[in-house]
């Protein structure tokens, strides 16, 4: 029969609890049912599960019954004054609260990207110059086309002097270099 082809124990076992609870889709239920009919071991397992589930239901429902002493009137009298002090949560305010973190996250991401960019370019100075936030050195002011290669040339210059164990050439843009 379609959908009731026999399955192996290892495939049936994970579904046995749901099968006993009547929570399997019809096709799976037919397959598991057919297996349980044919397999003595799984059939015993189902018996044991049924017994355990009955015990659980019995215990849990008896637990519900034993709260008969709940004084609902008294509970309501305690709750009612608190309701007066509880304003309803409006939909738009909840939505705003839910979205508030997004601009903050975007700002943090942008700051991080800027910091990574600055680090990758070897320092803040060239980035600040490229952003127009700092004046370029006098030499670059005279030859603005040189600026494109300025950051790379400066990095190569620093690396070359490090390899030679020398101090890098003083930066023309620094106040000390300008004074010298």
């Amino acid at each position, binding site marked *: 029969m379609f959908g009731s082809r026999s399955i192996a124990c290892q495939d049936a076992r994970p579904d046995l609890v749901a099968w006993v609870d009547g*929570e399997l889709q019809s096709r799976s239920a037919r397959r598991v049912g057919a297996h349980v009919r044919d397999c003595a071991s799984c059939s015993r397992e189902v018996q044991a599960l049924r017994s*355990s589930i009955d015990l659980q*239901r019995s215990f849990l*429902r008896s*637990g519900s019954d034993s709260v008969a002493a709940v004084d609902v009137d008294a509970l309501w009298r305690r709750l009612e004054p608190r309701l007066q002090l*509880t304003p309803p949560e409006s939909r738009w305010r909840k939505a705003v609260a839910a979205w508030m973190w997004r601009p903050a996250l975007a700002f943090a991401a942008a700051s991080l990207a800027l910091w990574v960019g600055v680090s990758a370019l070897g320092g803040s100075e060239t980035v600040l110059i490229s952003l127009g936030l700092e004046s370029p050195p006098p030499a670059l002011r005279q030859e603005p086309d040189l600026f494109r290669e300025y950051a790379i040339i400066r990095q190569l210059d620093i690396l070359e002097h490090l390899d030679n164990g020398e101090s890098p050439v003083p930066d023309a843009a620094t106040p000390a270099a300008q004074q010298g």
Partner: protein
Amino acid sequence: MTPTDDPDVQLMLAAQRDERGAFEALFRKYAKQLVGFARQFVGSQARAEELVQEVFLQVFRTRRNYVARARFSTWLYRIATNVCLSEVRRGEYHGRMVPLDPPADSGDPPSQTADPESRTAEDLLLSREAVDKITSVLGALPAQQRAALLLARMEGFSYEEVAESLNCSLSAVKSLIHRATLTLRERLQDVR
């Protein structure tokens, strides 16, 4: 049955329109069973009653956001489960056996049989010792497994409703209930 056929959904929609009587009716209908549910998480009935008040305060506060998508009880238990799980996560109850208060009417609690054909009510009458043992094993289950088991076995929710209440997938619920059931079966072998 559509959600709007559920009379409790109608009451909740009325509560949404600030009809206080409707809210009170929902409280009176569910307070007792929610205390029973919460008690399985916190042990003490007094604390469970406080949690139930917290649940209804949240229902009242968020009533404008309510959308009738399923049975009202599914939505209510979603709030109740969140409140109980938050309480458990505070750590006071973690890894600790939480014995339930003895029932108010004293003596062994009454029992009901879920499957009348397989057992009689007398068969399922549980001794105090058995109740303590089951409470202990249930209290040691991971909170999510316990919540899924309680919703399914205590409140009679379908797996789909449990998934809605726990805000997780159907397959996750199947797995939670499967593991919880096997743990209980294994540790309660000596309990009749």
